[in-house]
């Protein structure tokens, strides 16, 4: 996983609540056995007017000019601003993969679905929860002002506007540590290998039917 550094990025607003993982990356693209290349099919059914299937050349497809990510002012956005319960539905990690592959590094919403939220941290994509009122304000600002950018400072746990408004967010200390240092969680867990073995041995004695 790459280290998460402080950065300033263009914001794109996706003004919908309950955006589900089927909308983020439709199922036909889940047939891939690879981890990359999903960005071109992010929000496929909203982004294109024709029906997408794996293997299609996205440059040849019919773009939906009205979809927010297709508007010229939001090209190369790195921060997605959206509404409550983002990422609900399936556990597919293809959803965070596609957002990251597209170029997003941060998703800001009033709330996220649990599994999606968790999956994001595993790949270095940062989901930030801000109060619904603050999200409302950011929506107004991003829609009013072309080229609207925000700075995300994970060390300070703050989203900072161009006019220096600071919106502090919560993040679990362990997850923050992993993101800032680009740590491999499996490697960290295996430092406890001895403890896992002892636990397993005890369990094998107490509940042998689990190991039959």
């Amino acid at each position, binding site marked *: 996983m790459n280290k998460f550094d402080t950065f300033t990025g263009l914001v794109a607003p996706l003004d919908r609540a309950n955006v589900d993982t089927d909308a983020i990356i439709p199922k036909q693209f889940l047939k891939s056995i690879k981890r990359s290349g999903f960005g071109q099919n992010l929000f496929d059914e909203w982004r294109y007017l024709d029906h997408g299937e794996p293997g299609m050349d996205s440059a040849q497809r019919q773009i939906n000019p009205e979809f927010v990510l297709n508007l010229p002012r939001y090209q190369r956005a790195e921060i997605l601003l959206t509404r409550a319960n983002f990422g609900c539905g399936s556990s597919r990690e293809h959803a965070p993969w596609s957002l990251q592959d597209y170029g997003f590094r941060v998703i800001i919403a009033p709330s996220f679905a649990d599994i999606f939220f968790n999956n994001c941290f595993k790949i270095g994509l940062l989901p930030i929860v801000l109060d619904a009122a603050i999200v409302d304000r950011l929506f107004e600002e991003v829609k009013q002002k072309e080229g609207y950018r925000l700075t995300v400072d994970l060390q300070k746990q703050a989203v900072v506007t161009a006019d220096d408004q600071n919106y502090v967010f919560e993040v679990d200390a362990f997850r923050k540590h992993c993101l800032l240092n680009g740590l491999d969680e499996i490697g960290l867990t295996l430092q406890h290998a001895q403890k896992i073995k002892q636990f397993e041995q005890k369990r094998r004695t107490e509940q042998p039917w689990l*190991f039959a």
Partner: protein
Amino acid sequence: MKRTLYDKLWDQHVVHTESADPNSMALVYIDRHLVHEVTSPQAFESLKLAGRKPWRLNSILAVADHNVPTTDRSHGIHDPISRLQVDTLDQNCDELGITEFKMQDVRQGIVHVIGPEQGATLPGMTVVCGDSHTSTHGAFGCLAFGIGTSEVEHVLATQCLLMKKSKSMRISVEGELGFGVTAKDIALAIIGEIGTAGGTGYAIEFSGSAIRALSMEGRMTLCNMAIEAGARAGMVAVDDTTIKYIKGRPFAPRDDLWEQAVPYWRTLHSDADAVFNRTVTLEAADISPQVTWGTSPEMVTTIDGKVPDPALIADEVKRHDMQHALDYMGLQANTPIQQIYLDKVFIGSCTNSRIEDLRAAAGIINGKHIAANIKQALVVPGSGLVKQQAEQEGLDKIFRAAGFEWREPGCSMCLAMNDDRLVAGERCASTSNRNFEGRQGPGGRTHLVSPVMAAAAAVAGHFVDVRGLSGFAK
């Protein structure tokens, strides 16, 4: 200290915590790892690249379910991309020595059907799978939840997961369910009540006399839908129904081990005065057959209800979302649900494809025929063994005679990764779990219902109140 069922399951599995703070990350041991073809290939690849091996092979059970065809399988899978994904699972399992039920094996089926069917899901376990409907297994008094691919790799490599403890919610359903009302209706009524994000951050325990009265199939349907209420895990306490279901199943303990396991399993319930972070109570008698009208499971009403009117919604975001959903669904505000006509009917999915579901649907269909406007009606059993059992009982003949197609087991039209799908604009009564845009095929329109409601709709051609059908009795 009085503990909830969730507390007990959690405490049993914590290997290590970073600090005494109950909100800190814990390393949690995983007893059972179910694997399917869609969310595992990248995990196996990364594991291999890192030079790692699975920690405990006999904790893993694998099956291909999402991509498999439900028609004749003797020639394999014709879609090369789907075939590659299934072949990749087969290769990974063969290479590493993982138990897998391959496509031609009679035990193959939907991962959340075969785990319990085989006795691979047992009370007191932690059960994970790279699939959000893993919550299904909580019906057995275990802690079961869906994970992403990075976590699949983490469990393969370490037999553990790093996680935080959730908050606890108890949803009690008291009293007796009305005639024609099922576990699916309880699930949808709960989601209608608390919303699709109502359970976010919680582990839900379903309790109360109406839940205790449910069969294991019904409890699985209910726990399956916990994720549609936003909760990663749903669970039901162990009782005689649980233990009776497990006894004699292939992976279940026998003889001395059985005698040793059962007393422990009987401790798997919340203590009488255990405290939950949130409590919700529903009266079973108040629950009617449910039908969703929108593109989220919380967009639901009763069979005697109407499509809601966005004009009456004050909140701007909600009004906009409702209008968007009605536009997608091709529905007018205030249309009575019973006047919604259908094109297709799907009976299947990890929510409702077990033998009890098929029996209930066949009970409605028996001696009748699907309506002229129904272009296709599918029954997709949850596993090869469910199919076999149903055939022994003659259910396949009832469905076929009524104009249903009787298929091979798999996820099928619940998410349309194989050839079973809606075409744009088609409207389907479905026993599955998600009515998201495009879920059953691009532009497809899904209404979630119980198996008996789907069967009744197939016969009538539109939604009808199953409680009013002549000849339908308990």
